[in-house]
């Protein structure tokens, strides 16, 4: 059955390519906007930094957290999602997300196959960088988001189901959300602000992760077996690469090497540092010892949480956001046992909780003094903007959860979501891929 799926996928891919081959039409845009080499260098580099967050960053971050029998299967998720979503993005995803707006709901098909997406700047998507650079930077975001979700169903999801789910999710959840918030869609029109993806990336993946964890059920032996991370240095290597890459994730979202970029980077780094320190202190007081995984988790929580706010706030708001992230995510994870779902790698506790916190913090702390293209938050006397942010939290979480649920049911009908119990006992590496990580 899996082989059959492979054949079908292969054929599909072949047809798509065949139908689309040819050089894209020369861009019809007026070349009045001039490419700035410094801004372009920064956005290209930022795209590379986001890539490194995903592979090898997130791949190893997650890979180190699972048991050694599942490390390849876990790393495989990041690599395959990167590859498949990138291809889909070129073929159709970018057009759905950022193509000319259709009623605030979705982008049109005008840019399918990157048709018309050339090297001249697009007036709203980075007026000083090639349009393709914007498209490429956004591609990395589209790829990393479903890869985040994969942490929730690690160690038990069938490979073919994982690929199918991620591909469909990127088209049916990610692309619309990106359009609503960044592509000129209805939430953008309402004034919702999400600098680098607190809602589009983190809430959406956190909500999807929750649904995945519940629908797939717990890992065998959850709660009784020893399931400690098999290689924490690997996770810490991943953490370092995530931290490094996040400068591009948030800094690159300024779409140029400008003041917003540097202030976003300062906010990002501040929140990460504060998240690490606060999580460390929380654990130290609560459990008696500080842990290395705690520091790493706190840093990632800080990074995820500050993401939507980073371009609109100063360093002190970032300090507070980092502190809140460290505390809230720590307790969210400690208490998750009470809710009884098995979110293997804590996507909900870190990205879900962090994303919500970050979007609300944006509504609180955003300041036009920092970024004139932003808005003033509640603290600066603007409750209506805060309201829009609350609305965005709810809409994104619900939309992602519902569509995720439907997709899972659909796929469960086609191919099973979960590996067989013996396969799970053996581990994904041998059962899904005929490989062992270490020998």
């Amino acid at each position: 059955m899996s082989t059959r799926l492979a054949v079908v996928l292969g054929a599909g891919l072949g047809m798509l390519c065949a139908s689309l081959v040819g050089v894209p039409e020369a861009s019809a845009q007026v070349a009045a906007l001039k490419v700035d080499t410094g801004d372009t260098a920064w956005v290209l580099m930022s795209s590379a930094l986001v890539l490194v967050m995903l592979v090898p960053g997130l791949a190893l971050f997650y890979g180190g957290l699972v048991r050694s029998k599942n490390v390849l299967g876990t790393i495989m998720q990041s690599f395959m999602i990167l590859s498949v979503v990138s291809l889909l993005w070129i073929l159709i995803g970018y057009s759905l997300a950022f193509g000319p707006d259709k009623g605030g709901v979705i982008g049109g098909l005008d840019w399918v196959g990157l048709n018309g997406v050339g090297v001249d700047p697009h007036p709203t998507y980075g007026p000083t960088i090639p349009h393709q650079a914007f498209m490429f930077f956004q591609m990395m975001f589209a790829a990393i988001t479903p890869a985040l979700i994969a942490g929730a169903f690690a160690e038990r999801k069938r490979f073919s189901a994982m690929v199918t789910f991620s591909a469909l999710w990127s088209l049916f959840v990610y692309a619309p959300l990106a359009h609503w918030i960044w592509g000129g869609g209805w939430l953008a029109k309402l004034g919702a602000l999400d600098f680098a993806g607190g809602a589009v990336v983190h809430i959406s993946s956190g909500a999807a992760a929750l649904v995945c964890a519940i629908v797939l059920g717990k890992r065998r032996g959850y709660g009784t077996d020893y399931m400690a991370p098999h290689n924490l240095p690997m996770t810490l290597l991943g953490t370092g690469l995530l931290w490094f890459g996040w400068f591009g994730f948030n800094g690159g979202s300024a779409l140029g090497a400008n003041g917003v970029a540097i202030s976003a980077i300062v906010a990002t780094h501040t929140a990460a540092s504060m998240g690490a320190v606060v999580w460390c202190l929380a654990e130290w007081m609560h459990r008696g010892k500080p842990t290395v995984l705690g520091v790493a988790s706190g840093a990632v929580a800080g990074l995820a949480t500050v993401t939507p706010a980073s371009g609109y706030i100063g360093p002190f708001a970032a300090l507070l956001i980092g502190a809140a992230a460290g505390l809230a995510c720590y307790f969210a994870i400690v208490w998750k046992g009470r809710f009884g779902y098995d979110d293997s790698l804590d996507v909900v506790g870190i990205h879900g909780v962090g994303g919500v916190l970050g979007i609300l913090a944006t509504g609180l702390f955003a300041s036009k003094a920092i970024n004139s293209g932003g808005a003033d938050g509640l603290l600066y006397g603007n409750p209506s903007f805060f309201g829009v942010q609350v609305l965005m939290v709810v809409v994104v979480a619900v939309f992602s959860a519902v569509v995720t649920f439907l997709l899972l049911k659909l796929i469960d009908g086609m191919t099973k979501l979960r590996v067989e119990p013996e396969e799970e006992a053996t581990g994904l590496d041998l059962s899904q891929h005929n490989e062992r990580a270490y020998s």
Partner: protein
Amino acid sequence: MKLIEAIIKPFKLDEVKDALLEIGIQGMTVTEVKGFGRQKGHKETYRGQEYTIEFVPKVKIEVAVPDSQVQRVLDTITRTAKTGSIGDGKIFVRDLGMAVRIRTGETGDTAL
């Protein structure tokens, strides 16, 4: 005294250990081993190159017990380590001439 050596499936270790504790066994020594037998191994593929691995991961438990307890230990291990499928493993029982507890120098059954 006897030395009882059981080769079992790794995921059964905790269950067997707990059952032994319950019948009053206070110590044991465990080694990770690779077993070869009727149970089949697995295939691996690396860039098209296939390998068949015939060895299967197993765990060896060694327990030294007074003669009086041998049968209970045997029964306990057999019961808890059993899944019924090929590869459940073996138990070997051997004479143990002498046992010493290094810390105290005690010998015999009290050393266990």
